[in-house]
């Protein structure tokens, strides 16, 4: 139950924690800008091919998207409570809830892969390849599905990274018998998960709800 190593150049532990949190937030800002370029591509092509995007959105399976969103929100609630429990020095539930978040992440990835499988069956491949685009030769659809694969693919990679880090943190909390002082490190990873969840909260209506009346 030792305190974290106070690095030589920080005046006190509170300053070191604030620096770590600010550093993570700045990293998350740069990640958000990383996604921002793809949001701009989505907006550009949606304005250029409005009706084709409606067709594309109504083509995606709304139910799978909604289940995925619910899973991510559940994961976000679990990891936030896990940090809170660790701060209350109750390590058991903290580790358990972190593992539940990992499971949510894995669940999200499996559902997403199933959805990709459905698309591949229908002949929808990124880059406008596949026989689906022979029957529907409009350009807007090619642009929509390429943007869809890019955005959701990149987001899925980020969820996979989050699951890996959360698994490692759960093991670290268990191995080193971490007390409340270490809660801020788990909090940093929780920030990353919440960020991934917030991105999906926007991706979900963009690809599943906007214009999907059926």
């Amino acid at each position, binding site marked *: 139950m030792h305190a974290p190593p106070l690095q*030589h*150049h*920080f005046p006190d532990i509170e*300053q070191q924690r*604030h*620096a770590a949190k*600010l*550093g993570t937030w*700045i*990293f998350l*800002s*740069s*990640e958000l*800008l*990383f*996604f*921002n*370029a*793809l949001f*701009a*591509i989505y907006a*550009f*092509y949606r304005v*250029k*091919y409005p009706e084709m995007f409606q067709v594309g959105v109504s083509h995606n399976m709304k139910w799978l998207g909604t289940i995925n969103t619910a899973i991510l929100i559940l994961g976000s609630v679990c990891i936030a409570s896990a940090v809170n429990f660790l701060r209350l020095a109750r390590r058991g539930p903290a580790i358990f809830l972190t593992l539940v978040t990992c499971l949510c992440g894995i669940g999200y990835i499996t559902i997403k892969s199933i959805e990709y499988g459905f698309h591949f069956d229908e002949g929808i491949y*990124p*880059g*406008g390849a596949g026989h689906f685009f022979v029957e529907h030769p*409009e*350009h*807007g*659809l*090619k*642009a929509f599905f*390429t*943007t869809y694969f*890019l955005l959701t693919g990149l987001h899925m990679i980020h969820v996979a990274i989050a699951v890996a880090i959360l698994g490692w943190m759960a093991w670290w909390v268990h191995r080193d018998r971490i007390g409340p002082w270490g809660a801020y490190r788990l909090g940093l990873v929780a920030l990353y998960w919440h960020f991934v969840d917030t991105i999906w909260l926007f991706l979900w209506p963009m690809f599943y709800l906007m214009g999907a009346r059926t």
Partner: protein
Amino acid sequence: MKNYLNDETTIWSWVATTDHKRIGLMFFVLTILALMVGGTFALLLRLEHLTPRYTIMSAFAYNQTFTLHGVIMVWFFLIPSIPSVFGNFFVPIMLGAQDVAFPRINLFTVYLYLAGALVVFIGMVVGGTDTGWTFYPPYSAQTYTALMPVLVGVFILGFSTILTGLNLIVTIHTLRAKGMGWMQMPLFCWAMYGVSVIQVLATPVLGMVLLLLTIDHGLDWGLFDPARGGDVVLFQHLFWFYSHPAVYIMILPAMGVISEVIPTFAHKNPLSYRAIAYSTFGIAFIGFLTWGHHMFVSGMSTFDAGIFGILSMFVAVFSAIKVFTWTGTLYKGAVSLKTPLVYVFGFLFLFVFGGMTGVAQATTSLDVHWHDTYFIVAHFHFIMVGASLTAWLAAVHYWWPKMFGRMYPEKWAIAAAILVLLGFVGTFFPQFLLGNGGMPRRYYHYAEKFQPLHVMSTAGSWVLALGLLLALVYLLWSLFYGERAPRNPWGSRSFEWSAPTPPPKHNFEATPVFPPSAYDYSRPVEF
């Protein structure tokens, strides 16, 4: 006497150092190498333009040369030259801290820079790409030259820039000395803060754009392929959303150096500290709104061109405020003309002239004639070489005593400065006239009537190269034979001069107590 240079001299102590001063030195050496490589490409380009047709290389080699000149100079010299070298070295000392907030990440940025440089070097050796540093599809998606290594190399380097920015922001927020508020900080730290904000918020978009181009070129997903619903103007939007703030990444540190050099050599407080501090933020944020002025004739809608035109004008207002404040600082001061100040005067004239031609291009109708001609080449070289390189040279001479404990030879330095400034004007002023005459950019084979101006420009480039070589020679000479530098050779009140020369591993013997203002020349110097 123990200092950060001879503290421990094993190779491992340098390779795995977490001391922000050693990391600054490593970046210093790397960026000078990049400047040399980029500079030789520039001289080759100028040689090629001595005659309208074939001179020393073929069209294909010429296209590769100007592309690599652009990539190396922009990403490997200009962007890291002041933030990664002087930002890493001096911001902790100016704040009274022992090191940056995340020393290990700081070391990681050096290795990211090396990895990016290696990958681009492989690309250069394997065949080099001929798409220009702007990589516009569909040509960049179709070229059969080695485009992928260059894209991946710059992608890796982008992360090095982001992490440097992250490091400096957290350092300035959390590691300021006791009693040093935001308005007591030296102005260089304000400039580093502004640059880091742009680095963190703009470079990710470049990373994504280069990734998309790699996918388009390699996997042929046709995101920008018009035959499959793509739109080439979209790539230009995303590329210039990064590249215009990148231009401010290059000029803001230069402004930070000038805001340090002028008060020191004029022994006077800046005309208004808040004006410079707030206009740094103005440039950092309004800089993000103006990227459309690169695309007035590229098929963008007329309404959008109007919006971007007026927004580009407002950025110039903040630069003008800074220039007004610097010139005002000299008023009623005690000015001693040393080499850094000679470079600063060069900076003032070239930056204002270059900047105002920028405003001229923001008037949309004039840009229709000037776009993609040598007028644009002259404009951005006035800012990148005339302002940013001159400020980098001023910073090198201003902080040379503090970094190495040796004084540079004053007479030689002023001669080199005069050579550099005259060589620069000789090289790039004729290019303004070439641009007016309608000579397009990236032209290997040009009309006969432009030849006299090209010969003048090439002669100027030799003088500029001579001046830079002379500076390199006497600076290396001063490392071994220069006279020992005292703790505060310029009598400056700025905080970094309170540390011993050259500073020990933890910057200060005891935790420093700084006077309330870094520019108070109405009281005698304390250190």
